[in-house]
Structure formats: C-alpha cells, structure tokens
C-alpha cells in the first residue's frame, strides 16, 4: 500500500525553524511528497521548446559577451526558469484556497528580473547566489527567494501590470523590507544591497 503525504505527518513531530519568509520565520513541519510524485517532479528535464524559450530570454537580458556567466551561471538557472514557465499551467484556485492564476506577463517579468539580478550580482558584486526558489502566490504574483547562510533576498513579482515590487533583504541582524517601482532597472536594488553586503 502506497504511503501518502498525509500518512507521514502523523509521525513527524519535530518543528524546524527553516523558512525565512519576509518579516518572519515560520516554524513548521513539512510532510514530503510521495515517492512517485517526487520522482515525477525531479525528472524535469527541459523540453526542446522550453530550451528555445530560455535561449531567447537570455539573449534579451544578458550580455552574450560575458561568456563566464553564460557557461556557468546560466546552466544553474535553467531549472529555476523552466519552473517559472510551468506556472502558466496553474488554473484559477490551483491551491484550493481561491488563488488567482499566474498570467504570462507576470511569468515573463519574473524571468527577466531573475536573470537580470543574477547577472548583476555575479558581475558587479561578485556574489554567487544559488539559483533562487520560486513559488506562486495566491494573489497571482510570484515570490523569488535567494537564500544562503549569510544573505537572504526575497522579491515579490506582483501580478502584472502592477509595477510595485517588494523586496526583503536580511544579512545578520540587518533587515530591510521595502517596495519599489520597477521600470526595468535594478540599480536601486543593487544600491540597497551594496549598503549591507
């Protein structure tokens, strides 16, 4: 008999303070997915169509002359960006709590922001961050989390065409949370980062 997600919660008693989420740390226990679902999710080899789409996105957003970024960092981002593209498949109420769907403009905005910030961090601040975690929000936006032991950066890409983005940065005891009007330029974000990194 297959063990289900819910079966596993019953014997899972330890609370772990793992997730830094915006202004708070949420203490939680997570019940893993069933093995079959894990296998399905991990097997996210990129389709040919997805690869073509990503190549076009990179060509628009990243200086192709910067071959170091292209060869090393781009590969790390592929899986993250392909996951964002998949969010377009979510239908209204995909979470069972009444969530909005993620429109294609929001997905494009997320991809552009991630590639741009990753590239800028890599070239101008010499910061190598792991590929971010992306998660859809119930309001139709997308949360993007970069998380290391030293530095956490969270950005909320709002449902487009809303231009007001939110950002939360935490490094040690320094915590900054603010909104900014995004017009395709992230110099303001980099300036904030330069103050604490």
């Amino acid at each position, binding site marked *: 008999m297959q063990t*289900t*997600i*819910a079966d596993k*919660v*019953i014997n*899972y008693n330890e*609370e772990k303070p*793992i*997730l*830094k*989420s*915006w*202004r*708070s*740390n*949420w*203490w*939680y*226990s*997570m*019940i*893993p*997915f*069933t093995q*079959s*679902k*894990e296998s399905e*999710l*991990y097997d996210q080899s990129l389709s040919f169509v997805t690869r073509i789409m990503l190549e076009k996105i990179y060509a628009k957003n990243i200086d192709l002359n910067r071959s170091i970024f292209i060869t090393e960092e781009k590969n790390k981002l592929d899986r993250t960006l392909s*996951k964002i593209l*998949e*969010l377009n498949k*979510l*239908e209204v*109420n*995909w*979470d*069972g*709590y*009444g*969530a909005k769907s993620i429109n294609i403009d929001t997905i494009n905005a997320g991809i552009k922001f991630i590639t741009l910030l990753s590239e800028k961090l890599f070239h101008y601040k010499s910061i190598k961050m792991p590929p971010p*975690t*992306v*998660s*859809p*929000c*119930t*309001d139709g*936006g997308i*949360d993007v*989390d970069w998380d290391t032991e030293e530095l956490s950066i*969270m950005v*909320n890409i*709002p449902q487009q065409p809303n231009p*007001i983005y*939110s950002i*939360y940065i935490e490094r040690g005891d320094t915590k900054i*949370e*603010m*909104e900014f009007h995004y017009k395709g330029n992230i110099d303001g974000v980099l300036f904030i980062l330069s103050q604490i990194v």
Partner: protein
Amino acid sequence: MPYEAEEIPNKDFLFRRIHKSQIDLVNDKPGSGAFSDSGDGMSTDWDKYSTPHETRNRIKTNTDPLDYGIVRLNTGMIRNIEDQEVIHTPEDYNRAHTDIIGKKKIAN
C-alpha cells in the same frame, strides 16, 4: 447550523495545504509564496477538527490531492510572530477552518 468560533490554545497545531509548485524539492522546503493571504487571511485547518488527510482532500477543484503536501504550524509560534493573529473561523462545511491574519509582507 453554523459552528461557533472557539479560542485555539497555543499548544495546538494548524494544517496548511501546499501545492507542489510552492515546494523547493531540492532543498526540501516551501518557498515564501506558500505563506500568503487569500482574502482576509491565510487559511489553515485546526487539528482539533481536521486530520492531515482531510485537509489535503478538502480541495474544491478537480486537482489530484497527491499534488499537495501538508505543513503543520504551531499556534503559539505563529502568535509569536509580529502582527500575526490566529482566529478560528469555522465554515458550514469545515469546522476546522482557521485564518492566520496579519500582513505577511509589506505589499499585501
């Protein structure tokens, strides 16, 4: 007949359904988007009136229940978070329904 709201003790737990798209399986944790409000708050189920199975299966859409995981949150720990309140808000079809009310991030 509608259920009456009750005070939830700090020692009790809440279950929240998380869609697979909100999980970072590489690091085995949910992304921050998993903790966001719908309407007046973030919906959960009180473990006094719900099991993880019931929370997972209480999906109003035709999606596969196995596409969802369950996170378990301690009520007292949530109340320790700035600006967060735990309010039992039973519904006719779900006596366990509980809202976590308070801004989850600056924008909402």
